[in-house]
C-alpha cells in the first residue's frame, strides 16, 4: 500500500513501518504496539493518519481525560460501538470490559483487526497494577482480533512495575533533525506565502534557535510570532523579497530577544503581535522593553509579614538575638565565627521552615508602630499561603504550632522591602 507522504513530512519511514505491521485488515496483528518518542514528534498525528487511511475500526482514548478506569472502559466501548448516548455503557472492571468488547465485536460483525489506541499511556501506570498487563494481553484474553496501541513519551523501561508484563512491539519515533524541522515548519507555512521566501525565513529561525531548542511546538510558535516582523519591510516596500541579507539584519535582533524568553511565554502570541505592531508603526528597529508588571501590591502588614517570613526562612534561628534584640551585647568574634561556612549559606540551600511564633516575634520587632494582635493579622498569613508566597509545612492538622516556609525570591522581597523603606539586606545573615 502506498501513502501520501506530503501530508506528513519527515515521517515516511514510521508510516511505512506501521502500515507493514498492520498488514491487511483481516490479518491478525501483534497484540500490542508501543509507540514512543519525545513530545511533539508526530506520534498521534501519524497514527491517526494511518488508521484513518486504512479505514479500519479503531478508537482513540486519551488517558488524561479518562481519569478513572470505568470512564476509560466506557469511552472505549462507546467509541467502538458508535453509541452516542452518554452512560449507555457501564463498565467497572476488566472482566466487564472483555465481555462487552465481545458483545460489540459481534454486534458489529467485524472480521478485521480492531485497534484501540491509548494516548498518553504513561498515565495508565498510576492505575491498578493489573491494568496494563491485561490491556496488553487483550487479544489473548478476549480471543478476538484486537490490537492495543500505547502511545507515550516515556520509554518502555519506565512501564515496568514489578508485575510480570509482556513487552509489546516497540515503534520508536526519533527526534526530528534540523533539516526535517525546516521541512515541517515550511510545510505549515501560512497560506499565500511563497515557499522559497518562507524557507529562507525558517532557516534564519532555525539558525538562531536550534542550539537552544528542538521542540517543534516552541519553534512553530516562535516562527509564527516573528514572521510578521520579518515580512513588515517587504510589505512596506522597503526591501525586495529577495533581499535576504537585509531581511536577516532586520529580523535578527527580534529573534535574539525572543531567544532570551524562550519557553517562558511571558507574552502571548497576540500580545507579541500587538507590541510589534506598535513598534512597526513607529521605528521598526527599536524594541520597546516588555512592560514588567510583576510587582504585587500587598497590604501594609502583609508586606511586613512577608519580610518577617523571609528573614525567618533564611536566617538561622540562633542569629535572631543578634538582629532583633537591642543591646544584645557584643558578639564574641572567634576565629570560627569569622570564617563563614559557605555550605551553610541558606540562599544557596533554599529556605528553611520556621514556626509561626518565630515569624510573629520578628514581625512585631520590625514593625515600627504597635500592632494590635487582631484576627486580621492572622488571616493575612493564610492569604499569603493561598497566594503561594508562603508555603505551609507539615500537616493541615498541626494547629498548635504551624510551620511555614517563605517561597519568594530575594529580588521580590527586596522590591517589597524597598517600598517600605526597610533595608532587608542588613537583616540577612548571609549578607552580613
Amino acid at each position: 500500500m502506498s501513502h501520501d507522504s506530503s501530508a506528513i513530512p519527515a515521517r515516511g519511514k514510521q508510516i511505512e513501518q506501521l502500515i507493514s505491521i498492520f498488514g491487511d485488515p483481516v490479518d491478525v496483528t501483534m497484540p500490542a504496539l508501543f509507540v514512543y518518542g519525545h513530545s511533539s514528534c508526530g506520534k498521534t498525528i501519524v497514527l491517526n493518519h494511518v488508521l484513518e487511511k486504512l479505514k479500519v475500526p479503531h478508537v482513540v482514548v486519551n488517558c488524561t481525560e479518562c481519569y478513572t478506569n470505568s470512564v476509560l472502559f466506557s469511552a472505549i466501548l462507546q467509541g467502538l460501538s458508535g453509541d452516542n448516548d452518554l452512560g449507555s455503557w457501564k463498565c467497572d472492571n476488566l472482566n466487564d470490559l472483555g465481555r462487552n468488547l465481545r458483545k460489540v465485536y459481534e454486534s458489529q460483525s467485524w472480521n478485521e483487526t480492531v485497534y484501540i489506541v491509548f494516548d498518553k499511556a504513561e498515565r495508565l501506570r498510576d492505575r491498578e497494577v493489573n491494568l496494563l498487563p491485561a490491556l496488553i494481553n487483550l487479544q489473548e484474553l478476549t480471543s478476538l482480533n484486537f490490537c492495543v496501541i500505547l502511545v507515550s513519551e516515556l520509554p518502555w523501561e519506565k512501564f515496568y512495575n514489578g508485575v510480570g508484563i509482556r513487552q509489546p512491539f516497540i515503534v520508536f519515533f526519533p527526534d526530528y533533525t534540523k533539516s526535517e524541522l525546516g521541512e515541517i515548519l515550511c510545510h505549515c507555512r501560512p497560506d499565500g506565502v511563497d515557499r522559497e521566501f518562507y524557507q529562507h525565513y525558517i532557516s534564519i529561525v532555525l539558525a538562531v534557535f536550534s542550539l537552544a531548542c528542538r521542540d517543534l511546538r516552541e519553534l512553530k510558535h516562535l516562527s509564527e510570532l516573528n514572521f510578521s516582523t520579518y515580512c513588515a519591510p517587504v510589505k512596506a516596500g522597503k526591501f525586495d523579497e529577495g533581499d535576504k541579507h537585509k531581511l536577516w539584519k532586520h529580523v535578527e535582533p527580534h529573534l535574539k530577544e525572543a531567544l532570551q524568553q524562550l519557553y517562558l511565554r511571558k507574552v502571548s502570541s497576540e500580545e507579541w503581535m500587538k507590541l510589534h505592531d506598535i513598534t512597526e508603526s513607529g521605528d521598526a528597529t527599536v524594541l520597546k522593553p516588555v512592560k514588567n508588571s510583576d510587582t504585587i501590591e500587598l497590604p501594609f502588614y502583609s508586606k511586613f509579614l512577608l519580610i518577617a517570613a523571609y528573614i525567618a526562612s533564611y536566617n538561622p534561628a540562633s542569629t535572631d538575638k543578634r538582629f532583633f534584640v537591642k543591646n544584645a551585647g557584643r558578639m564574641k568574634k572567634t576565629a570560627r565565627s569569622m570564617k563563614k561556612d559557605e555550605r551553610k549559606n541558606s540562599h544557596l540551600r533554599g529556605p528553611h521552615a520556621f514556626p509561626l511564633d518565630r515569624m510573629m516575634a520578628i514581625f512585631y520587632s520590625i514593625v515600627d508602630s504597635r500592632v494590635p494582635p487582631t484576627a486580621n493579622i492572622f488571616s493575612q498569613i493564610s492569604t499569603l499561603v493561598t497566594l503561594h508566597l508562603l508555603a505551609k509545612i507539615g500537616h493541615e492538622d498541626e494547629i498548635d504550632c504551624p510551620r511555614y516556609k517563605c517561597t519568594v525570591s530575594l529580588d521580590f522581597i527586596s522590591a517589597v522591602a524597598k517600598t517600605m523603606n526597610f533595608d532587608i539586606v542588613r537583616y540577612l545573615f548571609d549578607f552580613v
Partner: protein
Amino acid sequence: MDEATFSVSKGCFAFKGDSKENEFETTKYLKSDDARCAERWKLGTEVWNNIEISTNEINSSLQESMFLDLVKYIERSCLPKNAMTGRSEIPTAALMTGVNMPDHAALFVKLKEAVEESIAQSVVILQSKDCSNIKSMMRAIVNQLLGDTGMNTSRTSDAGDEDIASDDLYYMRKKSSTITMSMIVKWYNKVTKPHSHGGSPGKKRKIDDTCFARKPLVIMCQDLEAFPQLVLHDFIIMCSFHAATLPMVLVFGIATSWTDVSQRLLSHSAIVNLSVEKFHAPTASEHLALIIDKVLLTTEQPFKLSGKCLELIVDVFLCHDFSITSFLHALKFCALEHFREQPCSILCTKSLKEAESVISKFTKNDIRLLKSVDSFKRYVASHDKDKQTAISKDAGFKSEIKKCIHDLHVFHSFYFPALHCLHILTSSLPQYPLGKKIRELYHMCYKHDINNHEGFKQAFLLLGVSSRDQLVKHLNNCADTLESFTYEFDDCVDNDVHPNFASAKLHAFVENLEKMDENDPQPDNDEKDEEPENETLETVKYAYQLQERLRNRANKKRIRKMTRFEKIREEAISYLKSFFWQHLQRVQFMPFHEAFYFDSSAAVKRHLLAAPRLAIQTALSNPYQYLPVPSLEGMSYGVIPPNAPDICVAYKLHNECGNIINLYDWMSAFHVITTTNHGEGETNSEENKKVEIDEVTQARFIQAVSELQHLGFVKPTKKKTDHVQRLTWSHS
C-alpha cells in the same frame, strides 16, 4: 418529641429542623425605652441604601472598561481563525485581580453577567474549593452548565426535538456519574447546534456556514493560585484536546502576577496550549479613593464619619486586606450603629425640610433625650442666663434646634467644596504637608484647627513661593473645583467668602497675573536707586557700621523686591487663607453635629477588629467580665478566690512563675488555693499541705494545664522533666 414519631421502638430519631428561617426582627434588638428607635432604624436603612446605590454606581463605572475589553477579547477569539493563525491554542484571558480576594466573587459574578449579556451562552465560574480533583471539577462545570441552560433544554424537548436525548441529560444530572470533557463537548455541541427545523423561533439563529461562528464556552477560574497544580495541568491538556472542535475561552483570575503563575503553577507542556492575553482589574486603592471622594466627603450623603473613624476603617483596609467588600461592611456597620445609638440621628436627613418636620413632631421625651447631647450642653453653657431659660422651654428648644440643624446644613454645603479645593491646591506640594489623599486632609481638618496647624502653615508658605505658572494653574484648578459644586444656601454666608464669589475672584487674580506679561519691565525702575549706595559703603570706618548698613540694605531690598507679581500672589494667598479659614472650621464645636457624624471608634474597634488573644487573656485574668459571680470580682486585683474556674486559677499561678515551671510546685499551689475553705483559717491550710493531693484535684489540675497548653500559654519542654515552658512573657 414522642408524638412526632409513629415508631413503637425506642431509639434516637433525627428530626429535620424547620426549613423556613426565622424572620429576623430588627425591632427586637432596638432599645425599647426610646420611642423613636424604629423610626431611626427606618431612616438609617434608607440612608445606607442610598450610600450603597452610589457605591455600586462607582463600582460598575470603574469596572466597565475592563469588562468591555474582556468581552471584546472573547468575541474576537471565537471568530473563525484564518489560516495564518491556525493554532489550536485556547484563548485565555489572564485577569490580574489584585490581592483583595474577598472582592473577587462579586467581580466574577458581574463579569459573568456582562459576558452572558453580550456573547457567550454558557459561562462557568470555577472556584478552587470545588476543584480538588478532576472529577469534582467536571461535576462543577456540568452543574453550572445544566443550571444555566436547563430552561433551554426543557424547551427543546417540549418541541419534540430528540437531539438532546433526555437520557444524556439524566446521566449528566445524576450526581454519581463521572463526567469527562468529551461528554461536555458532545453535549455542548448538541445544545448550540443551530436548529434548522422546528424549535421555537427565538432559538433560530442564522449561522453562516463559512464563518462557523459559535458561541464560546467560557470557563473562569476565580482563584487560580489555589487550584491544585496537577488538576489545572490535566484540565488544560483536556481542553486543548477539544480546542479544535469546541470554541472555548478560559478566564484566569490571578491575584499575584502572570510570571509567578506561569513559572510555578503551569508546566510548559500546559502553557504551550494557551494563548494568553492579560487584563488588569482596577486596583482596590483607586476604588477606595473614589468611594471616599464621591460618597463620603460630599454633601450628597447626610451620614458622615468622623475623621478618626474614617481613618480607622481606612487603616484596616490599607493594612490588612485591601478589600472593598469589607470596607463597605465596616461602613455599613458605622451607619447603622450611628442610627441605633445616637438619639439625635433622627435629624440626619438629606434635606433640611424633612428634619424640620421631624422637629415639629417632637414629644417631651424626645426633647429630654436631645437636651442631653454633649455638644448642645456645651452650646447652652456658652450662652447667658436669659437665653438659657428660653432654650429650656420646649418651644424655644425647638426653634433653637431648627436653627442649629440649619446651620449645620449650611456649613456642610460649603465645607466640602472648600475641602476639595484645598486638596487640589496642596496635593501637589513637595513633601505633602497636608497629605497626599483627601482623606488625610479631612482627618486633619476634623481634628485640628487649621489656623494653628503646622502643616497648613507650611503648605501656605510653600504656596507663597510658587512660580507664576504654578500659581495660575493652582488658582484655575481651585476655581474649577469650586464651580463644579452647586450651592443651596446662597444667602447664608458673607458675600466675600461665598464660593461663587471666590471663584470669580480667583479668576480675576489669574487675569491680573496674565496681564502682567505685557507690562513686565516695571521692576527695573527700582534697581536704579541702588547704585549711589554702593559708593557710600567705602566711606565706612568701622566694621559694625558696615554691618549695620549692610543689614539695612538687605532689609530695604527685601521690601523693595515686592514686584507686582509678588503682590498679587500675596493677595491671592491671603484671600485663600481667609476663605479656607472661614469654611474649614472644626465641626465639633457646632451644636448637634452628632446628628450627622459617627464618632464612636471604640464601637468600631470592638465589633470589627477581633482580638482573640486579648479576649482569652481577659477571660482568664478577670473572669468576672464573663461570669458575673460576685466572689470573682476580686480577681482583677490579684486575689484568687477558691471557687474561680480551675483554668483561671492555674493561669493566675503560672503568671507568677518564671520561664520554666515546675509542675509539682504548680500543682501544690493549685491545691492550696482550691482547698482553702472559706473562713476556716490558716491552720487548715497548713494541714492541707501535708495531706496528699487527692486524685480529683490532680485531675482538675491536669485538665487546667492541658487547656492552657491548648491555648498556647505553656508547652512541654525536653530540657527538664516534670517542667513546662512558659510561652508568654511575664510582666515582672
